[in-house]
């Protein structure tokens, strides 16, 4: 039942400003936390290269959190329970899903995941911008979408540096349970 993570709720993306802020904050905070957890996983599994990438991505998302907070100015962003956040997928558009990880993954894989997340986020905000009735919402969403698009470009640039690994990349030389 996996739906498209990039989409706001079907037939009802008309967020208020508060809602938009709450959603964007949740999306960015989740992404920051997720990347931090993924970096830890790679550290524990001695995949330093990917760990560093995830740390870097976490930092970027951290800045995004700050950015959203800045957007809201002095008015506190209302809290929405995670399950009341509205989008079509089961998890937030931007953060990679836990089960997409592999301990032997390469930077290429990591960046593909990141790229997917950034694209989803960009589309998500773009969709809102396109369908919102409130002008402030439209403008804010467009701003956020633009930001995400910049990220997409950045990640695409990084990705170019890491060619697709050969298809045996996940071959485990010491498969578990072999002893």
């Amino acid at each position, binding site marked *: *039942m*996996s739906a498209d993570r990039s989409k706001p709720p079907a037939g009802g993306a008309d967020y208020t400003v508060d809602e938009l802020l709450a959603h964007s904050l949740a999306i960015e*905070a989740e992404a920051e*936390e*997720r990347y931090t*957890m*993924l970096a*830890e*996983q*790679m*550290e*524990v*599994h001695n995949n330093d290269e990917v760990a560093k990438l995830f740390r870097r991505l976490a930092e970027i998302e951290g800045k995004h959190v700050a950015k959203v907070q800045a957007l809201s100015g002095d008015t506190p962003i209302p*809290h929405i*329970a*995670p*399950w009341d*956040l509205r989008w079509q997928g*089961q*998890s937030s558009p931007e953060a990679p*899903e*836990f*089960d*997409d*990880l*592999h*301990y032997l*993954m390469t930077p290429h894989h990591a960046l593909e995941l990141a790229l997917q997340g950034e694209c989803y986020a960009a589309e998500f905000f773009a969709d809102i911008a396109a369908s919102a009735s409130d002008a402030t919402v439209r403008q804010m969403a467009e701003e956020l979408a633009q930001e995400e698009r910049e990220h997409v470009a950045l990640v695409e640039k990084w990705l170019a540096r890491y060619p697709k690994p050969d298809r045996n990349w996940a071959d485990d030389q010491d498969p*578990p*349970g072999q002893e």
Partner: protein
Amino acid sequence: MSVDTEGTTAALAARDYKSSVKPVWCPGCGDFSVLSALTKALAEMQLPPEQVAVISGIGCSSRIPAYLNTYGFHGVHGRALPLGVGLKVARPELTVLVSGGDGDGFSIGGNHFLHACRRNVDITYIVMDNQVYGMTKGQASPTTAPDWSLSKLTPEGPGINPFYPLVIALASGANFIARASTSDPNGTARMLVEAIRHPGFSFVQILSPCVTFQPEQRDWKKLVRPAPVAATSDPAKAARRLMTDDNLFVGILYQGSREPFQPRLENRLEHPTELEEQFAV
């Protein structure tokens, strides 16, 4: 815990419930998602971490307490539930969660599962079900399919009827019964909140893939779907519904209203030596 400038304690965020210990789970393991859902649930409830205890047995999944900033107890294999029951009965004001794996809970711990459901102490039991013994490197657990032949111990498959946790929970009298999936961490978080809030024994089975020994479980996210009907408080209805269950419906199956088991704990003695009088000659 973040403190705002006025010096009053600000709201707790999910990350405030995480400890600094890094999980040893395999990247990709469903248990990460459970950890994330659980911290979200605790944050939503704004439970002070020191008022929460998370108790587990042994297994990959049972390592979860150390990754949380609550009180924790990583006990022995199969005995998490009685640890939790003892703690809750003696300290009813605490929020007690018990968590672990399908091997821990349904194989060696099966008896405690039955009797914890019956006893209905107000705790929440979270089983991260991956249909395998992850920690001991891939043997069949009670929920494993009879023809799963990847374990050296049962090279032709365990060959026995799987254990259906929700059915057993219902048959034994659990007060809240639900199934969640790691592919929906926010939905899982909500279900955990409801489970924790519901008085009495709450049981949440979470389909949590073992990417190492059951890699095909990555497909679960494509297969799970919401239960077609809402929670019921009628055991008979719940039972009927379970008959058509393919173990991939997620949602709250049953919410009962049996009174939780909780002795009063009220001292009625001036001094313990009063108890000697009955023997005095």
